[in-house]
């Protein structure tokens, strides 16, 4: 196979094949003269071989194609087929002289598919040959030029193809990387997004979308304020900063709530960076968002725990210092003991530099009598592990004071079950011990006080119940007194009518018996009324100025206080009186009589006596002794000693309050008297009420009745004044003359002052009660004499009592009573 020349320029050699040597020489000669290079080929085979060297052209004699036994045409055609596509070696076919034109044309046509054939007829002219060769060579040169141009274009195409291939590879790689990046962002454990300059979402990964509570797709194109309105302001601050500085903002913390968890505060750490275009302009913002809520919470919790731990440590230290707890350690294996500073303070020992002490430092401080026992207690946990607690006393080394110590130890054992470390505390409990002893004493005192108060409370509860019961009984007694009065009234009326018709002794006896019974009934009613009165109201009844009358009034009710099988006597000599309201005296004596009756209830017989007698005290004062005596069992000395104590009682009865004797003493002492008791077992009991005697009033001085005058025109005031005077046993008359009356008491209406002076002058012990107009309001004239005003009269003498013109009945009563007593006292002093 011939090789084809790839030279850039064509060979200058023209191959010549002419079977006739003469032709070849002639042709070469002409051509050489013409400046062409020639090379003569011996035969077709040589020619075909030389074609591979890309000759400038071929001059071929026609007869070379027709050599017998050779297929010169095919050989040449075969060689020519081996040319490059651009190569078409020019062939000048020298037609055989004398041969038909048809033959040469046919040969040319045979080679035409592969050759560029020009036909020259022989004989050749020199010019024709040169021209044909020159044309052929020029065409040949053009082939080469075309070939060069073609080669350049191919090279350009090749480069383009290379570039296309390279670009395709880059695009494919880029796509792969893009997919990888997407996958990376999609699955990354951080949130990522890209916002344009308007803060609208251009890209967001699922992680961040999930945080925001809606899908990634739903984010796209929407403004941040639509998705996470709570964060937009903070984000705008960051993006503004990026736009201003052109630099990324890294690790910025955001907090707020998101639509996915409304109400929950969440935290994020975010890095935002500018995303730039080709010209460096900022297209938007890339954000990498990492949620750190859990971390923040953990940090907060850790901070809290740390704070608590510190506080706990502080508290422990403060508590240790405040409670004066000393701590010590004993390394059993090395037998070294260490104390903290408080231990040294507790024991009054100067601290050692390293805190180490000897056993003797401790044992020397412990009082000997406590030492052995404490060693024993401590050794127990050292042998077996666990805790021990001891109390012992020490004597401080510095001041010698004895202190009480409470010690607690914990032992740590090693794997072999041997104690290797003991840690213990010492607490000074001296003050606590003292406080406990003090507390114990207080507790005992308190207990006693509580017991006492409880007893008093129980007693007062009973008293309250009794008081309620007594109040009910009082109401009942009052009602019964009222009913008895109502019932006895018609009996007494009708009995009074029968009195005149009692003509025989028998009927008079019957009448007397019925009357006596009625009197008893009336006295009982009166006594019940006295018992029903409020003992606290001193003015509920008049004083027992006549004890004989008081005995008649109260004997029935007092009798009712003792069992029926006992005897009762109640009597007082005439002329004795005491200044105690009748009901209060009745209630006091009732208590004593009731006590006596109860003391004697078990006796088959006995007598309770109420008597009165006059006496004189050592100071010469007149007194009345009211005695309540019984011949009952009497009281032992210890009961006598306590019988007046409040709430003291020896009785089991329902209304025993212990208040009885206390009340008796209260009543008597309030009247300026005293109560005494004399009693002994088997000798009965006598209570003696010693009470100042009542001043003998005019009502008891019947021998010389005093006189009173009433000078009042108004019928009602006059009648009331006369009634009150009559009740005070005055012999009263109306005195309507314009003169001073002759009377020891004068009740007068608006008198002339001269008459008042005259009366006062003539009656040095007389008293005046004046009813004066103008006394309803306060006097304003200072009480000038000579006027008829009450104010003026009031200043005439202390013996003038001035009332209003129409005083209330009680005012009139009080004024007259006061004047009566004052007048009587003045007369008595005389």
């Amino acid at each position, binding site marked *: 196979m011939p090789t084809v020349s790839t030279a850039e320029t064509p060979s200058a050699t023209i191959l010549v094949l002419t079977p006739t040597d003469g032709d070849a020489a002639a042709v070469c000669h002409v051509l050489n003269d013409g400046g062409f290079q020639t090379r003569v080929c011996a035969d077709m085979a040589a020619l075909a071989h030389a074609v591979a060297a890309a000759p400038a052209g071929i001059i071929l004699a026609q007869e070379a194609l027709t050599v017998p036994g050779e297929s010169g045409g095919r050989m040449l055609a075969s060689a020519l087929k081996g040319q490059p596509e651009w190569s078409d070696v020019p062939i000048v076919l020298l037609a055989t002289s004398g041969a038909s034109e048809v033959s040469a044309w046919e040969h040319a046509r045979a080679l035409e598919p592969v050759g560029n054939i020009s036909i020259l007829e022989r004989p050749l002219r020199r010019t024709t040959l040169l021209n044909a060769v020159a044309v052929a060579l020029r065409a040949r040169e053009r082939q080469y030029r075309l070939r060069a141009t073609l080669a350049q274009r191919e090279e350009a195409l090749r480069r383009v193809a290379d570039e296309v291939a390279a670009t395709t590879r880059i695009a494919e790689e880029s796509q792969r990387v893009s997919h990888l990046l997407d996958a990376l962002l999609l699955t990354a454990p951080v949130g990522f997004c890209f916002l344009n300059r308007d803060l609208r979402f251009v890209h967001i990964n699922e992680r961040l979308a999930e945080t925001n509570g809606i899908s990634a797709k739903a984010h796209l194109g929407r403004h941040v304020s639509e998705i996470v309105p709570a964060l937009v302001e903070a984000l705008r601050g960051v993006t503004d900063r990026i736009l201003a500085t052109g630099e990324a903002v890294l690790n910025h913390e955001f907090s707020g709530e998101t639509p996915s968890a409304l109400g929950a505060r969440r935290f994020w750490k975010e890095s935002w960076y500018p995303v730039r275009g080709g010209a460096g302009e900022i297209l938007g913002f890339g954000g990498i968002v990492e949620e750190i809520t859990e971390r923040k919470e953990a940090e907060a919790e850790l901070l809290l725990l740390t704070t608590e731990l510190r506080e706990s440590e502080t508290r422990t230290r403060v508590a240790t210092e405040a409670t004066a707890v000393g701590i010590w350690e004993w390394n059993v294996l090395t037998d070294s003991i260490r104390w903290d500073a408080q231990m040294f303070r507790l024991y009054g020992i100067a601290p050692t530099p390293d805190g180490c002490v000897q056993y003797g430092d401790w044992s020397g401080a412990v009082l000997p009598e406590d030492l052995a026992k404490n060693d024993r207690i401590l050794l127990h946990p050292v042998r077996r592990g666990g805790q021990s607690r001891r109390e012992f006393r020490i004597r401080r080394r510095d001041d010698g004071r004895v202190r009480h110590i409470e010690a607690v130890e914990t032992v740590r054992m090693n794997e072999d079950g041997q104690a290797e470390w003991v840690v213990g505390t010492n607490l000074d409990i001296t003050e606590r011990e003292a406080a406990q002893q003090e507390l114990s004493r207080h507790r005992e005192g308190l207990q006693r006080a509580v017991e006492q108060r409880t007893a008093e409370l129980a007693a007062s509860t009973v008293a309250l119940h009794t008081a309620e019961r007594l109040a009910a009984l009082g109401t009942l007694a009052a009602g019964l007194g009222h009913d008895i009065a109502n019932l006895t*009234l018609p009996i007494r*009326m009708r009995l009074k009518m029968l009195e005149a018709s009692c003509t025989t002794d028998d009927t008079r006896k019957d009448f007397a018996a019925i009357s006596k019974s009625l009197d008893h009934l009336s006295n009982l009613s009166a006594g019940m009324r006295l018992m029903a009165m409020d003992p606290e109201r001193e003015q509920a*009844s008049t004083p027992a100025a006549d004890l004989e009358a008081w005995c008649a009034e109260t004997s029935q009710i007092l009798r009712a206080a003792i069992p029926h099988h006992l005897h009762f006597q109640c009597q007082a000599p005439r002329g004795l009186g005491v200044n105690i309201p009748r009901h209060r005296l009745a209630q006091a004596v009732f208590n004593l009589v009731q006590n006596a009756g109860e003391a004697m209830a078990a006796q088959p017989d006995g007598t309770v006596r109420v008597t009165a007698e006059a006496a004189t005290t050592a100071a010469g004062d007149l007194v009345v002794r009211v005695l309540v005596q019984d011949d009952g069992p009497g009281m032992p000395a210890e009961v006598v000693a306590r019988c007046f104590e409040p709430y003291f009682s020896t009785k089991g009865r329902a209304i025993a309050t212990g208040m009885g004797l206390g009340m008796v003493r209260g009543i008597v002492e309030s009247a300026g008297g005293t109560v005494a008791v004399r009693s002994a077992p088997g000798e009965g009991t006598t209570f003696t009420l010693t009470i100042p005697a009542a001043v003998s009033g005019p009502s008891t001085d019947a021998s010389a009745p005093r006189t009173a005058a009433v000078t009042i025109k108004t019928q009602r005031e006059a009648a009331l004044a006369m009634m009150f005077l009559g009740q005070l046993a005055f012999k009263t008359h109306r005195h309507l003359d314009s003169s001073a009356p002759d009377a020891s008491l004068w009740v007068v209406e608006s008198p002339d002052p001269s008459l008042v002076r005259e009366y006062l002058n003539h009656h040095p012990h007389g008293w005046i009660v004046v009813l004066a107009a103008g006394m309803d309001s306060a006097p304003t004239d200072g009480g000038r004499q000579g006027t008829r005003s009450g104010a003026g009269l009031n200043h005439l003498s202390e013996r003038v009592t001035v009332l209003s013109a129409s005083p209330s009945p009680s005012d009139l009563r009080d004024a007259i009573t006061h004047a009566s007593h004052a007048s009587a006292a003045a007369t008595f002093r005389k």
Partner: protein
Amino acid sequence: MNETPPIPGLFMVDDNDLAAEAMERYFTLSGLLRWLGWCPDPAAAVPMIVQVRPDVVLLDVEIPGADCFAALRSLTTQCPSSRVVMFSGHAQTALIERSLNEGAAGYIVKDDPTSTIAQLLIEAARGACVLSPTASSVYMRPGSGPA
């Protein structure tokens, strides 16, 4: 010429019919007072009293369901010539005080002796103010003295 004073007329207001009947019989037979009538209801008694104009009225202080003091006030204005004496089974200072304040001519307790009651009513009819012994024992206490 000595004229025998006329026998005072008495009207009684009391829901105790036994007492009223006994009173009527006693005063009629004794001739101490003229019995002018009796009524158990104070309100109903007022017009009767205004009509018969007794010298003295014996008015029970406590009649269940009735206001005896209202009757007292009515009588002191409508029949001032009749003297009203309050009559009660209770001798209580407050009741006596109120009776006298509201114009009663006296206060008698039913326990008091019959003859005393009759005498006090006669005195009251003649213009006096009266307190029966039992009422007096309660009311004539020592006061605190005049103001």
